[in-house]
């Protein structure tokens, strides 16, 4: 962390966060009731996906979250995006947060590409004027062209992902969360996406990136947070973070 960055106010604060998932034993009111009578476990077997994780991301900083599968990286992003709530500690964000997380979740196959662009952009928090203004750029970036008025169910999976990604990346944002998304589409489109993310980083947007692609992460981020089995084990310059991650 350079001095100029630490002087800026943080955009994301993660403080003492714990997320516990319950491995559930009952799935209906009846089961829960009978288990209670029999004095068996009702909710039970907690599992800490994240345990006492603390860090903050300064405004304009790009931070990578590194870790092996199941280490709790995606859970962390979901906590920052608000989809999940922490069981202990707190998460705070400043400004508009948008995520490149499972793009296309809000797409409806029966609607046209155009209708889906509007619907999804609105789901991601934009109003009509903002979408109108960006619409042409979204379509151009996705390279969908004349198919924009076709129903999305007729799209190839590549077209679908390109459009979904294009909507998500054009959202008005201050903080961008990226979860292993750059596996979208063919090589030229991937390159375009990486460039776009670079562009956003250059424009001073705050980024929190989860990826297994070490080359890309080292290129995009200056700092890395390593998570292992739900605990933060390293926080520092990206090159050292990658080493720490591969250490064991």
């Amino acid at each position: 962390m350079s001095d100029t960055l630490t002087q800026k106010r943080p955009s994301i604060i993660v403080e003492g966060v714990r997320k516990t998932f319950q491995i559930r034993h009952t799935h209906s009111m009846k089961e829960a009731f009978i288990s209670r009578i029999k004095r068996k476990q009702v909710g039970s077997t907690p599992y800490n996906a994240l345990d006492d994780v603390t860090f903050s991301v300064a405004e304009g900083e790009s931070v990578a979250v590194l870790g092996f599968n199941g280490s709790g990286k995606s859970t962390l992003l979901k906590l920052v995006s608000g989809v999940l709530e922490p069981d202990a500690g707190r998460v705070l964000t400043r400004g508009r947060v948008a995520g490149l997380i499972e793009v296309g979740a809000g797409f409806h196959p029966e609607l046209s590409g155009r209708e889906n662009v509007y619907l999804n952009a609105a789901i991601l928090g934009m109003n009509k004027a903002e979408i109108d203004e960006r619409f042409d750029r979204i379509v151009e970036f996705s390279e969908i062209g004349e198919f924009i008025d076709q129903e999305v169910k007729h799209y190839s999976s590549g077209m679908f992902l390109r459009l979904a990604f294009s909507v998500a990346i054009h959202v008005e944002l201050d903080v961008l969360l990226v979860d292993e998304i750059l596996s979208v589409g063919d090589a030229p489109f991937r390159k375009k996406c990486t460039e776009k993310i670079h562009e956003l980083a250059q424009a001073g947007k705050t980024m929190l990136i989860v990826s297994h692609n070490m080359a890309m992460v080292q290129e995009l981020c200056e700092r890395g947070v390593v998570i292992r089995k739900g605990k933060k084990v390293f926080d520092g310059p990206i090159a050292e973070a990658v080493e720490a991650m591969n250490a064991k």
Partner: protein
Amino acid sequence: MTSVDLTGFQTPGRGRGVLDVFNHGYLLRLLIRKGTATRYRNSVLGWTWSYVKPAAQFFIYYFVMGVVLQFHRDVENFAIYLFAGVVAINLFNEAFGNATHSIVDNRALVRKIYLPRELFPISTIIIALIHFLPQVAILLLACILVGWTPTFLSLGAFVIGLVIVLMMSLGLGLLFGALNVRYRDAQNFVEIIRMLSTWASPVLYTIAMVQATLPEWAFRIYMLNPLTTAVELFHYAFWAPTTTTPTDTLAPSIVGDVFLSLGICAVLIVIGQIVFRRFERSFAQDL
């Protein structure tokens, strides 16, 4: 880190509940448009189904209650009496059923993107309201044919009845929609409520018959059902002006019932919202 100035920070995932509808107006409109546009996709008759279904239901009720059980002798313009009640209950059943399923049906979104989740039940209730309008149009047409003219009071009764049905759908919809995420039993329980709703309010019979049959305390309990008030208000709005002796068949204390029902519905919405908030924290992991 605790010394950081926290002004301007938000906790992600905390909305303002039902009130969030007001600052997500555009998204709500799009969700409603999606619901209405995709509802009858790939069907030949399309929107006609919104007429066919209540019509079929009306004819079977009319045949059994009116013709076989000879109700139309006791109740003047029985067809209009019946249809006014049927549309009110249909609106409730549709709105309440949709709202109960709304969170589970939108699991793809709920699990991945944060948006105020109350938007889902609310948008489905408004979609139910849109599908209710053609039925009201038919009812109005029938009323006009038998000489109904709108008065300020009858329109007011209709609007208040509508508000009661929608409030009750929202309150119960929030409650059961949230419970349904963790316990799918909720939707079966809701099916029972929807099945009983037609019979638990004076749709197929008159309130005077209930009053004559039930003891005083049981009648009080019967009258606590806000849907009963709503159905009576619909009767008052559409059916009463077309008859000569409406007072025999309407609720004895309709004004008091209106306030009581609005109060009960408000309490239901508060309970629904509290439970919804409580369960919302774990929607993404339970779906």
